[in-house]
């Protein structure tokens, strides 16, 4: 029996297994999101590797149950501190992450002047120095399509929204947990 695979199947599988986000618009995104392919890929990754395929309107990515994985935590920490510092500056961090240009100098200024999270920055080797931040941005995040390099600047791709949504989920979970505890009368 010969199985007909969707167009760009090899590139789709390779990119996702390399931990990359596949972004809209793009031929790989088009392949996965097409109605007849979406279900196939969800089943394919679940049955072949035990990974969950998440297909959002602007990006696609794989998640695993591997709790030893540190990269997503480092990126989440990086984006959280960055958002907090942008907000402190009086700017809208959602708009900034969505459309602003960043460079290493600007990033370093935020991290060096972050008094609130100084301890975390010092303790986390992936964000503690200008070199480590450069590596996180231009190696880890660039390879995973979380940022896009433009000369000396970079811009976040829509994939950064995964981390913003995660923050929202955290708060929703916390509110749910709070509401499930019976109110104690004083």
């Amino acid at each position, binding site marked *: 029996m010969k199985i007909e695979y969707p167009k760009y199947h090899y590139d789709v599988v390779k990119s*996702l*297994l*390399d*931990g990359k986000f596949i972004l809209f618009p793009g031929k790989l995104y088009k392949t996965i999101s097409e109605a007849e392919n979406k279900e196939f890929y969800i089943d394919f990754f679940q049955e072949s590797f035990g*990974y969950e395929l998440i297909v959002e309107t602007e990006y696609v*990515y*794989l*998640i*695993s*149950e*591997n*709790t*030893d*994985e540190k*990269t*997503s*935590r480092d*990126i*989440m*920490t990086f*984006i*959280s*501190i960055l*958002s*907090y510092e942008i*907000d*402190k500056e*009086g*700017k*809208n*961090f*959602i708009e900034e992450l969505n459309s602003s240009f960043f460079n290493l100098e600007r990033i370093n200024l935020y991290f060096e002047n972050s008094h609130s*999270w100084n301890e*975390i920055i010092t*303790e*986390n080797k992936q964000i503690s120095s200008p070199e480590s931040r450069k590596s996180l941005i231009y190696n880890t995040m660039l390879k*995973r399509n979380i940022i896009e390099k433009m000369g000396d600047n970079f811009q976040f791709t829509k994939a950064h929204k*995964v981390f*913003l949504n*995660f*923050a*929202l*989920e*955290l*708060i929703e*979970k*916390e509110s749910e947990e709070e509401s499930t505890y019976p109110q104690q009368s004083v």
Partner: protein
Amino acid sequence: MIKAEPKTILSFIHQHFDLLKELFLAQSKNNSIDYEFLNNEIEKYGVEIKTQLFEYHILKNINDEYQITDVYYNLFEFILQQFKPLLPEEIEKYVQSITNLFIKIKEDINKDKNILIERIDSLTSEIDKFLSQIKNNTSSLLVKSRDLKANIDNIDYQEKIHKASFWIDYYIIPLNNIIDIHNSESIYNILLNISEYTNEKRLNFQDENIRLKFERLYNRLKQALIDIRQQSEILVNELIPLIERIKTENSILKGMHHYLSKGLWYKKDSPQKELLQKFRDNVFSNDFELSTKEYFEQFQLEEEVFINDDNHSFEEWVFDKHKYKERMIEALPIQNFFEWTINEIKSENIDLNTNQYFTMVSLLFEKDINIEYQNKYEKIIIEKDNTELKIPVLKITKDEN
């Protein structure tokens, strides 16, 4: 009783407006002006005007604090366009008074004409006041929400969430309920009922004077309904989404704060869904057989290894300049200096190396010899060092001088 001329008071306000503005802002913030603040401001501007402030009834003393009197406060609020948002309860009183006046007009429509005219005028005036309050409130809430969104006061995000929730819960949603055109209980629909009634009366009421009053009220109501629709649109389309966005932004920040402050960034059991690590390609290679063979062959092809013992028993060659010079003088004339050198060293059972050769060359600098350059070269190979040298053939003779 104010004794001063009105123009004197206006001129005083004009002259000291900057100071008065500071007092107005302080009262807007804290509802009153404290004794120390007033004195500091007067000192800062270097003008002793306390007496006039009280004489012109701009300030009044309440216990140990001061307040700008209502009429001046409203004036400053208006000319600075900085309205303090009113609580919905304060606005609702207009709804109440408008409703009551309308009921009275309807009930007593055929009774005393004078009181009917008074009530129609009052109703018109209340509608004007109500609209003015709504407009001021919407615009001040918009300014406050935009300031909050831009975080111009640099406040902490938790306070920002608190403020956004406060404005939406206590001011914006209740204000929207009051003016919501889709809510049958709202002022919009009350005014619509009044408008229908007034429309009828302005056309068929017997008394012409009262018909004109109804006509005036009807025109005000027409404008009021347009204004309320506009204000409602600002609330629904601009203010509520704006404040909702502030709440969303801040929920995200709150989540991030939670993530960082609760240590989820390093805890192994963090609730985070893990992104996929780079997949490791562990499948067998096409040429694994060859690679394996090559791997084992590297051990089979190993040659025997000899280790040089540094503590060898050979005697080291030492350049005895005196000895070699004597031999060189005895051998003169020497046709080929290098040939002679190599034979000398070999005669001592020592393998010549490059260093030895160059050391022996130093004999050429001795005083009592002549060196003749033969204009030809010889290629020699010093095997021990795997060195190839191209050297001139030198003839050495005794210096007779």
